[in-house]
Every structure is written in structure tokens, then in C-alpha cells.
């Protein structure tokens, strides 16, 4: 049963890593705008050289 010391230790450590990741995301402003990315993903990436815009025209 002593394995439980190791298991708890590593699970807490792992959880701390996630907490740290959340802090980092919060500090760098990744959660400041939670709405715009959902719109941005629906827009098409097009390069100015290729005239893709014509193809979009129905």
C-alpha cells in the first residue's frame, strides 16, 4: 500500500502543473476574449496573391 504515497504525490504534482498552466493562460490574457475566436474560425484564410474570392462567389 505504500505505493499510495507515490500515487498521491504524482497526482498532486500533475494537478499543480495544470493549475500553473491556467495561471499562465490567465496572466497572458488568453481568457480575456472568449467570443471573437469562435467567429474568427469560420472565416477563410486567403492569400492576397490567389484570387480565391472569385470562387466563393455563387
Amino acid at each position, binding site marked *: 500500500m505504500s505505493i499510495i504515497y507515490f500515487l498521491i504525490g504524482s497526482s498532486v504534482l500533475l494537478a499543480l502543473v495544470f493549475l500553473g498552466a491556467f*495561471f499562465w493562460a*490567465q496572466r497572458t490574457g488568453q481568457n*480575456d476574449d472568449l467570443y471573437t475566436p469562435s467567429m474568427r474560425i469560420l472565416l477563410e484564410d486567403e492569400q492576397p496573391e490567389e484570387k480565391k*474570392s472569385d470562387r*466563393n462567389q455563387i
Partner: protein
Amino acid sequence: MTGILTAVKTNCYHCGDECEPNLYPADNKQFCCQGCENVYQILSGSGLCSYYQYNDHPGATRDKLNKRFEYLDEQSILNELLDFHDERISIITLYIPHIHCSSCLWLLEQLNRFNPGIHYARVDFLKKRLVVRFDHQKISLRGVVELLFDIGYEPLISLQDIIKKQQRTEKGNLVQRIAVAGFCFGNVMLLSFPEYFGLSGFEQNFRHFFGYINLAFTLPVVFFSGREYFTSAWNNLKKKVLNIDFPLALGIAVLFIRTTAEVLTHTGAGFADTLCGLVFFLLFGKFVQQKTYHHISFERDYRSFFPVAVQTLENGMEKPLPLAVLRPGHRILIRHNEIIPADAILLKGPALIDFSFVTGESVPVGKTLGEIIYAGGRQTSESIELEVIKPVSQSYLTQLWNNEAFTRKRDNRMRTFNETVSKYFTVILIVIAFSALLAWGFTDLRRGIDAFTAVLIVACPCALALSTPFTMSAALSIFDRNLFYLKNTSVVEQLAKIDTLVLDKTGTITTGNTRNAELQSQLNDDQIRQIYSACANSMHPLSRMICRYFGEQERLPVSDYTETPGQGITARVKGSELRIGSGKLLFGNYHETADMTRVHLMIDGEYLGYFGFKHEYREGMEQVSALEPEYQLYLLSGDQDQERRELLRYFRDSSHMRFGQSPQQKLDFIAELQQQGKKVMMLGDGLNDSGALRQSDLGVAVTDNVNNFSPGSDAILDGRSFDKLPAFLRFSKDTVVIIHLSFLISLTYNMIGLSYAVTGKLSPLIAAVLMPLSTATIISFTTLATHFTAKRRKLL
């Protein structure tokens, strides 16, 4: 009325406004004006026509074409506006009101394709903000702003950029504290389960191990997440106030001390799980309470309405000057559509000033040379020159902000239920705790201390502290759905206490521009065409309403056209002489009857009758006036009393209506009502109501577009929901009842807990079950009850 049908209308490809075909055609597409066409040309020139694919008609109509951003070259102004700048790079956050669809998002993030000097542009859609990073050696800020203007996204730049400075740090910090508390709560729960289910004999050494880990987890919860409860309780204690934070801090402290003692002495498992859960739920309640509207600002004053700089004339040279350094004696140049920033004397040019932001009155007023023009008006005809007679902050309108009502701190206007109740709660709690200690203390000191701490733990008013935020935030979202935006949750309780309503007239109970036009005359088709052609030349709102009244007509050639500000139009159409305007213009001297605004018509000296314009009152004025006698209603108007008779049906009697009130008088009137012990809610819309809004117990700005300018207030009401005002008031009272009920529920839980606690036999398991259970009950009760009452009030 007329049998003539003109060509079929079409919609502008850019902005979607209705327009006549082939006025501004380009690439087989129709545009309503030169501005829209220009935007299209710019976009198609840069290969960015996908803009039009994402949405139909994404653009804004572009009636003004001249750009005025010279002031952005001034270094002192630049320094105030930029977020960051070094030798090469500048970063600025701009507020762009027109952002509304995915096309906007797409186009604005492609800014670098217009100019390689722009490195990066990112939109925050909800906040309608654009962050631009650019190389200021390649493109100046003025260049960036002009580019935005050219593609139809004019940023709103004002000195009071509050939106930028809104409380960011507070909320970010709270999220982190919640994260830590939640993290510890989860882990402690996991490690506490063995204790709940019982450990067999050979597992006893784990008990201590789990205890120590649990104790380690409570440290960040108490000293990082829960610290503010201690500081707040201590600060309030110093001010001799007992607020809800005191029993909370006491509960946290006792939980922590007892847990530490039990774990270190190996006498028990402690209450680590209750402690972490308590702090987590409390902080979560705080988070719910902090709802913010990103797109609305409640703190605006005249500075967010006035421009950043004004063009001054010095020795015949034009130079932009920041408003702060504008002094009496400066000569300023105000162009079409610009705002006069300080009281000034008109020196040159035709002044036709629209004071709608100040008074709500939309009909422009003509001014003659030498006359004083008060700050806040918008020039609607050509450029004028003025001499400043008072600095910006001392002007007739702006000196209102020097009033005591604006400088005074307003945090303790009304005591909330929570504040009142927590005082008694704390006292009773401490009395019970000490009597438990005394009762057991003489016989069994150990048990006495157990009972004492158990009382403080179990009676910790967690559910009480949560009932208000959860009810209020549920209420807030109901209001929000009905287009009534409250500044924060405590406004709901203030709303419930209101007993007097004061309404502004223009813009608040009348809708800004729409008036009923009524033609008192018999006109033949020829005359209609003549009048239409003459009026079509004028930009005056009344002329435009006449044109709208007639609908689309054939335009005849007009000659000898003159428009006298404040009087009317004289013109020659198809050989006939037309006079359209006030009685003064037509008859020289004429006394207007006061019941409505009239535009008289005369062709070739023959009087044909008049157009009558009546203000249209907002829908729901009947419902609002039915609030009497439960609420007292007053009218406070800056206008003269032309409409007294019409308004009388909504208000009890003439003594409840005040006309011709200056901004200062409005403020004083509110203060007078308050001295009579009334709780006053003021509804206003213009800058002239700012003082009254501020002075009142609850200031509500009424607006037709929440993104437009509205004066600083506690709440913003969309004009479309004006008829729901009585429902809002009743609903706010229901909310307070719900808070009272949930207080009762949490008291019941406290009683159950206390009955265990006073015996000194509180097991950690009971505490750990009771606390989340009461919290869950309160949250579900408040949420359900709020929705139920909202349905009953037809707000959902």
C-alpha cells in the same frame, strides 16, 4: 396622394440603405452615396471583396466624407492615446462602434494588407475594440485612423476612454483566487473520502498522512484565496461596522485553527474540506456578482462626448489644440458636424446648432453673430469661427460636473438587506457561541471549546452571503434580456426601494426624432411637387420630415433658394415663389400658438395652411402613468411648456410638471425631493440630465441605441423597453422578497447545524454535508424563484 411612381428602388451594395439606382454605379453594383462607393473601390483595389461575401450589406452608411484627424499629429495627444510606444512600434486600442458582424472582424484583421506598416490588428468583438500594432516610422497613428475611416470604421476617440480602463485587474485576480480554491477543494475532497468511509486498523498511518496533506492544501486557500475576507473584516471593524465579512472571516479562521490543531495533535481529521468548500463557494458568489457589460459604459461624462482637440486659429494659421489647454480668447474653428467644446461668441459664419445631446431637442437652432453659443451643441451647417469666453470645464453645461453631487463618493446611498441583517446576525452568533462555551466550560473545558468552535463553523453565513449575489445576478440577466442594463447587482435593491419617479421629457418620454407630421391643408399634385423640391434642398430635420411625408416625388428645378436659420426656406420653383417656415418668415410678425411646432406653407403669396409636428410619446407612457398612486410621478423638462396640456393626462396635476429647467435646477429639484424623504429614480437622456441622474438615488439613462452616447448613470434603459418599466419596478420588489426567503432557508440550515454544534459533537462529516447542501439549496432556490417571478411579470 399622388399618382406618380418613380423608378424601383434598390439597396446599396455597401450599407444596405435604400437608394435610387444608377446614382453611383461601380462594377454593376449600386451605391447610395459617394462614401459607400469609395469604400468599395478601396476594398476591391486591395482584393478584399470577400468582405461582402460573409454578410449582406455589412457597411455603415457614409454621409460625411471629410476627415479631421489633424490632432492625431500632436505629440501630447498621442502620448495619452497610445498604450505603448518605443522607437519603432506603437500599440493602440481603438473603440469602433460600428463593429457588428463577421465581415467587420475579417476586414479589420486584414489591415496589414492595406499598409505594410501595420503589423497586427486584432478585434475584440464583444467590446468592439481593435488593437493595432504598427510601425510609426512607416505609418502614423493619424494614417491608421484615416485608413480605418476610409474603409468605414471610424474609431471613437475621446479623452475619457474609460472603456479602456475598466476594472481588469480586479476580475483577473478573482479568477485566480477561485482557481486556487477550487483546486484545493477538489484535492481535499478526494483525500477526505477515506475518512468519511472509515479506515481500517492497518490503514491508520494513512490518516495522518492525509491530514497533513489536507492541512497543506488549506494554507493557500486561507492565505491567498480567503485573505480579502480578513482584510475587509478588519477594515470594517476599525470603522466600527459589522458587515457580513466579519462572521465569514471568523468562520474561516476558526475552521483553520481547529483543523490545524486536530491534525497536529492527531485528535481528529479537521474540517479542511468544509474550509476549502466555503472559500470556493464564497468566491464563486463574488464572481457571479461581478457581471460587467463590456459594450456599455456607465461612467461617461461630457469628456467622452467632446472631441479630443479643436482647431484653433492663430494669426490666420490653423492648429489643433487639446481641449485641456483651451483658454478664453482663443479663436476656434468649428466645421460641419463638429461639437462646440466651450461657451463661445459667434464671430463668423452661419450657425445652426443642434443641441440634441444637451437638451434632447432635435431641431437645430439658428444663432446670429455676436451671440453666445453654449458648449455641447453640434454645428449642422458650414464652418463657423468663434471666440472662447470660458474654459471647457467652466462652461454653462460642463460646470455641472463641478457640483458636489459628482465629487461626493456614493457608496453608501442605501443600505442593502445584507448589510442590515448581518449586523444582528453577527451579534447573535457570537452570543450563542459564548453561551455554548460557558455552558460546557465549567464542567468540561475541552467540550466547551469544541462547542464554541463548532457554533462558529456551522453558523458561518455562507448561504446568506450567497443568496444576494445569486438572486441579483439572476435578476440582472432577466433585466438584461429585456434591454435594461444595470450597472451592478446592488442597483436591483435600490430599484425596489424607489417611491418617486422623475422623468425628463425630450428624448426620454418622447422618442428623439419621430414626430407625427400632420398636414392641415389641401394641396394639389403640382403644389406638392413644388414644396417637396424646395424642402429636398434643406438638411433641416423638419424639411426632411416633410419630404418623408410626401414620399418620393419628382424634383423640379429650384432657383433663388435661401434658408434662414430658425425661420425657414424661401425659393422659386417652376416660376412660383415659395415660402415655407415659421409664421415670422411668412407674415413678418406672427404669434405662434404653443401647442405644436408648425411649418406654414405659402405659394405666390397665397397661404395654403401648415404642417403640424407633434411629439410622439413613447409607447407605454400609459402604463408608466398608471404607476400612480403607488409611485409619485414628476416631469422635469428643459423645454418650454408647449405640451403641458397633452402631458397633463399622464401626470397627476400641473404641480407635478416643471418646465424650462436648467441642468442645475433639475439637480436641485431632485435634492429637494430627497430632503422630503423620497427615494427618487430619475430617467433622463441628455447631458443636461447628468446632474439630476447623479443626484438621484437611481439614475437611469434612456437611449435608443445603447452603444451611443448616454450620460453617466446607474442603469441604461433601451427606449424599446420603456413600457416594461412598471414590470421592472415590481420585479425588483419580488427579487427582494426572494432574498428574504432565501435568508430564511439559510437560517433553517443554521438552526439544524447549531443544534448539533451546541452539544459540542459536530462531526466533520455533518459540517461537510451541511455546507454544500445549504449552498446548493440556496443557489437552486434563488435561480428558480427569480425565473418564476420573471415569468409572472412577463419579463421572460
